[in-house]
C-alpha cells in the first residue's frame, strides 16, 4: 500500500496536481523569471529546496504546535529557510543570485509552499512529507524550466544560455543557438509572453490529459485533477 501511495505522491506532484500548471500557485515568480531556461531552473531548485525543508520541518513539529499558532509558525519556518537559501545562493552562486536576487525572498510568499505545509505536511508522516515536497518542488521546477525554455527559444533563439552561471565555466558549451539569423520574437521575452506561454502549457497539459482519459476510460485521478482546476 505504502509503495503505491508514494508513487501516487510523485505522480500528483509532477503532473496531476502540478502546483504551477494545475493549482496555479506561485505565479508571481513563475511569470517573472522564466525568460530563460536557466533562470527558471535556478528559481525552481531554490523553491524545491525550501519546499522540501519546510515540508519535513512542519511534519516533524506537527504534533506539538497548537492549531491557533500553526500558521505563524509555518511562516517563520518558511521565511527562515528562504533567508538561509538566499544567503547561501549569494555566497556560492553569486552570478545567478544577481539575476534572481529579488525573486528569492518572494519564495516566502509562494502560496505553493505554505499550501503544502498546511494541506499535506501538517497531517502526514515525515517520509511522506519529504516525498511530497520533492515531488511538488520538482513539478514546479519542471514547469518553470519548460516555460523558460519555450520563451528563451522563441524570444532569443537560444537554449540554456548562461548555463555557466549555475554549473561553472565548463557548462558554457551547453548553450544551443538557432544561429545568428534568428531575430527572436520579442513578445515571448516580455511579460505578456509569460502569460501566453503558461496558457499554452496548461492547454497542452489538458489536451494530453484528455487523450489519456480517452484511451483509459477509467482514469480515476483525472477527476481529481479536474476538480482542482475548477476550484483553483
Amino acid at each position: 500500500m505504502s509503495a503505491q501511495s508514494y508513487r501516487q505522491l510523485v505522480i500528483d506532484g509532477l503532473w496531476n496536481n502540478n502546483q504551477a500548471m494545475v493549482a496555479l500557485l506561485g505565479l508571481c515568480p513563475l511569470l517573472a523569471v522564466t525568460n530563460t531556461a536557466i533562470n527558471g531552473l535556478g528559481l525552481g531548485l531554490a523553491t524545491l529546496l525550501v519546499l522540501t525543508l519546510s515540508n519535513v520541518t512542519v511534519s516533524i513539529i506537527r504534533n506539538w504546535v497548537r492549531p491557533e499558532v500553526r500558521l505563524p509558525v509555518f511562516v517563520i519556518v518558511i521565511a527562515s529557510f528562504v533567508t538561509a537559501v538566499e544567503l547561501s545562493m549569494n555566497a556560492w552562486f553569486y552570478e545567478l543570485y544577481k539575476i534572481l536576487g529579488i525573486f528569492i525572498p518572494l519564495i516566502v510568499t509562494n502560496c505553493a509552499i505554505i499550501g503544502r505545509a498546511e494541506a499535506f505536511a501538517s497531517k502526514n508522516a515525515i517520509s511522506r512529507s519529504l516525498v511530497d515536497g520533492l515531488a511538488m518542488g520538482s513539478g514546479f521546477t519542471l514547469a518553470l524550466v519548460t516555460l523558460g525554455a519555450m520563451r528563451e527559444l522563441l524570444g532569443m533563439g537560444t537554449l540554456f544560455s548562461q548555463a555557466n552561471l549555475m554549473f561553472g565555466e565548463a557548462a558554457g558549451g551547453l548553450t544551443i543557438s538557432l544561429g545568428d539569423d534568428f531575430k527572436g520574437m520579442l513578445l515571448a521575452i516580455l511579460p505578456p509572453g509569460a502569460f501566453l506561454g503558461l496558457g499554452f502549457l496548461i492547454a497542452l497539459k489538458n489536451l494530453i490529459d484528455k487523450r489519456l482519459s480517452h484511451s483509459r476510460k477509467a482514469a480515476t485521478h483525472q477527476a481529481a485533477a479536474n476538480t482542482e482546476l475548477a476550484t483553483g
Partner: protein
Amino acid sequence: MTKHPVIIAGLILSLFAVSGVGMVALVHDQTKEIIATNEREALLKLLTALVPAESIDNDIVNAVTVARDADRLGKEEVDVYLGLKEGKPVAAVFTPVVPDGYSGPIKLLVAVRIDGSLGGIRVVAHKETPGLGDKVEEQKSDWIYGFTDKSLTNPGLAGWKVKRDGGEFDQFTGATVTPRSIVKAVKNTLLYYRDHGNSLFQSATGGPT
C-alpha cells in the same frame, strides 16, 4: 485556566521565532565573508575591464571618493574609484546614474583616464526594454564599446549626440531614448571630470600632484 493554552501557544511561537532567527544568524555568519569577497571581486572585475589591472598598482576597490553634482551625475552623491600608479593618478571610474532612461534610471560605470579620454563605459543595471533598449548591455551588442577612447575633443562637444540628433553615436532601431540618455550622461560625466577631476585626485593623493 483559560489563559493557559494562550501562554503555551505564545511560548511555542516565540521558541520558533528564536530558533528561526538563530538559524538565519548562523547561515549569515557562515556566508558573510564569502558574500563580501564575491561583491568585491565582481566590482574589481568590472573596474579592471575599464582600467587595465597592469596600469594601476593601488587597491582601486577601496580607493573610493565621492563626487557631488546631482545635475551632471544624476545623483546627489556618486562614488568615484581612483586608479593610481606609484601615487600618480591614472584614471577615475565614476558611477553615475542616467536619470532619463526609457523605463527608469540606468546605472553606469564611466572610466575617465587622466588625459580626459574614456577608458570605457559599462551599464551596471537598467530596466530597458528587452530586445530593444537592452542592447546597451555588453553581452547583447558591441554598442557600449563605441565610447572607448572618446573624449570631449573627440568628437567634440557638438558630436556628443546620437546620429539621429546630428551627433556621432549610433542609436538602435526602435530604441533611441536609451542611447540618447546614455550619451548625454557620459558627456555630463566628462564635463564634471574636466571641471573637478583634479580635486578628486588631490583628495586621494593627499595634496597637489
